[in-house]
């Protein structure tokens, strides 16, 4: 009977092949350099935590992180310059990781975002100095009970959680791998590698620690839940195709697989495995993207997490997750286009509308931005659905544009503070335009970019995506997208009205004067927003060249 035979062969292969026969894996260190640099730096960071005295850690960590990220970005540029994005695109690390245009583009974006995020992480001027020590947005001692003696002591001692830097680097490492992963296992591992540090980071807020911890719990539980689905989906796909490499699965789906074992023949016939598996994997990714109905963690987590983390998360996670989604849909499941496209249509529609509509009645800036990010996820999905090279490049462009706007916006949020830390309730933003026109104006620019007003990056991105979608035959999506952006415009405008046209509150918040770090972050955000809005061609070209997946 066949099973016995297979089993037997299994044993025999195990028996007759001594370990020395196992070929040593061949790793293209050069092409994996960006990831390796970041992860290496992360480990260095851990060591710093272990070995250096407290007072030196901050500087050292900051230095290491910045250098590492910069170096990694340089490496990406090098690879891109070496045509690894186009003609020399290939699959590296024994088929585990793809090095191609989209991968490089997204890695570059993520690294830049991370670099800017590091600045906001390192900001130490906003909070009033506690006991003569400059403090940042992170808890003095995460383990201490909020408001407990231990915490007081830690604050008094001037502890700071410099671990955030290695955590960030680990997360970045995972994110770099996520969109480049070329087999489902790597995908899963990468997912966890960047999720776990984020869970922790969420719990580290200095102010409102209860909220912070709650956010962490929710994010963690739901994240674990979703990754379980993802994993089961992977299992089913594996069961269907007998392999977890993207290429392999794709071949099986298309029926162009080379030799068909009887077992494979058996499972190949069973499309249920494929469809259910695909759907579950999709769900895992949609969760990270924050698409309705997998979005409900977003507002809570965005609100509870320390704002720098929120900014980083909102920007980088989306980029990574969409990268992975693109690769999955364009490399693994193109054969199933006719099955998943309608479903994704539905998701895109409810995401666009849901995000926009619910945002209308929000009263907390961070939650507002969270819902707007959901709506934007919907817009990007519209581009994903296009299933054309144009679609890919438009999504890449949108991600790049959007991530910087988001980062900038959240950085501005960190500036507006009152006695209790950041004043995120909208009512406190009333009249900000009178008190500090510059900050208000900058925030207004970001909001207008979110709203997709021409001459901002938001508009260019939106147009690119809609154009691709319409080209890809998703005209109705465009119309719905337009409608929901009209709804979305409403609440962006509301904030602007609040800032400029309503009388300042006497007990209103003050705008902290940031250190060059945050200022730089915001400045970069504005610059990118304007440049991508006025002269997007160069970056569109980049994204266009990066529009082909290797398989």
């Amino acid at each position, binding site marked *: 009977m066949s099973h016995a035979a*297979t089993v037997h062969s299994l044993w025999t292969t195990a028996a007759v092949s001594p370990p020395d026969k196992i070929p040593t894996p061949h790793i293209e260190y050069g092409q994996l350099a960006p990831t390796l640099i970041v992860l290496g730096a992360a480990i260095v960071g851990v060591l710093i935590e272990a070995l250096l005295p407290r007072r030196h850690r901050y500087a050292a960590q900051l230095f290491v992180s910045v250098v590492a990220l910069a170096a990694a970005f340089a490496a990406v540029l090098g690879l891109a310059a070496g045509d690894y994005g186009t003609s020399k695109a290939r699959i590296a690390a024994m088929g585990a990781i793809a090095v191609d245009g989209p991968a490089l583009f997204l890695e570059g974006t993520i690294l830049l975002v991370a670099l800017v995020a590091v600045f906001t992480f390192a900001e130490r001027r906003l909070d009033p100095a506690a006991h003569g020590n400059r403090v940042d947005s992170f808890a003095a001692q995460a383990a201490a*009970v909020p408001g407990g003696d231990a915490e007081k002591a830690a604050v008094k001692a001037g502890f700071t959680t410099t671990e955030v830097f290695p955590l960030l680097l680990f997360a970045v490492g995972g994110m770099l791998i996520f969109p480049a992963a070329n087999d489902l296992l790597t995908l899963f*591992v990468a997912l*966890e590698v960047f999720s776990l540090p984020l869970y*922790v980071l969420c719990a580290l807020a200095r102010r409102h620690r209860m*909220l912070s911890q709650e956010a962490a719990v929710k994010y963690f*539980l739901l994240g674990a839940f979703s990754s379980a689905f993802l994993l*089961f989906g*992977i*299992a089913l796909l594996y069961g269907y195709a007998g392999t977890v490499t993207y290429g392999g699965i794709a071949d099986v789906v298309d029926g162009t697989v080379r030799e068909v074992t009887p077992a494979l023949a058996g499972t190949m016939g069973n499309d249920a495995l494929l469809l259910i598996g695909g759907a579950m994997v999709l769900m895992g990714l949609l969760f990270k993207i924050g698409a309705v109905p997998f979005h409900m963690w977003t507002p809570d987590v965005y609100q509870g997490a320390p704002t720098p983390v929120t900014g980083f998360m909102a920007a980088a996670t989306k980029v990574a997750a969409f990268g992975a989604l693109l690769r999955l849909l364009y490399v693994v499941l193109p054969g199933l286009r006719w099955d998943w496209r309608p479903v994704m249509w539905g998701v895109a529609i409810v995401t666009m509308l849901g995000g926009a509509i619910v945002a209308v009645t929000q009263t907390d800036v961070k939650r507002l931005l969270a819902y707007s990010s959901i709506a934007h996820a919907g817009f990007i999905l519209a581009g994903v659905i296009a299933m054309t090279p144009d679609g890919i490049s438009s999504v890449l462009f949108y991600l790049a544009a959007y991530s910087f706007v988001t980062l900038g916006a959240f950085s501005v949020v960190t500036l507006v503070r009152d006695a209790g830390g950041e004043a995120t309730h909208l009512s406190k933003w009333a009249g900000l335009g009178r008190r500090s026109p510059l900050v208000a104006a900058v925030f207004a620019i970001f909001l207008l970019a979110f709203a997709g007003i021409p001459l901002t990056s938001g508009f260019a991105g939106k147009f690119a995506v809609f154009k691709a979608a319409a080209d890809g035959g998703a005209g109705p999506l465009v119309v719905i997208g337009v409608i929901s952006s009209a709804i979305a415009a409403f609440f962006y405008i509301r904030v602007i009205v609040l800032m400029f046209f309503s009388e300042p509150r006497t007990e209103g918040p003050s705008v902290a004067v940031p250190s060059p770090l945050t200022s730089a972050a915001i400045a970069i955000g504005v610059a990118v927003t304007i440049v991508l809005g006025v002269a997007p061609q160069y970056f569109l070209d980049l994204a266009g060249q990066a529009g082909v997946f290797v398989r």
Partner: protein
Amino acid sequence: MNPVNYLYLAALLFTIGAAGVLIRRNAIVLFMCVELMLNACNLAFVTFSRMHGNLDGQIIAFFTMVVAAAEVVVGLAIIVSVFRARHSASVDDASLMKL
């Protein structure tokens, strides 16, 4: 015996785990249920690996375990800190942020 049955078992375990996540309140139990789901996946992997007669599935199972272990570390850390802050491990108590 027919390995497909293991798949059914895996599916069952997964569902039980999911159901647990949906209905239980205690964070620890929730977390256990997630672990259960992960293990269901492992079972599925191993089964498929047997059916296809290649080792990938088994390898993946190991990876999964490691990842699960990592999750435990992070997860428990978070849950414990919350527990110390609130003296309760009920996820329903952690609902300050809503609407």
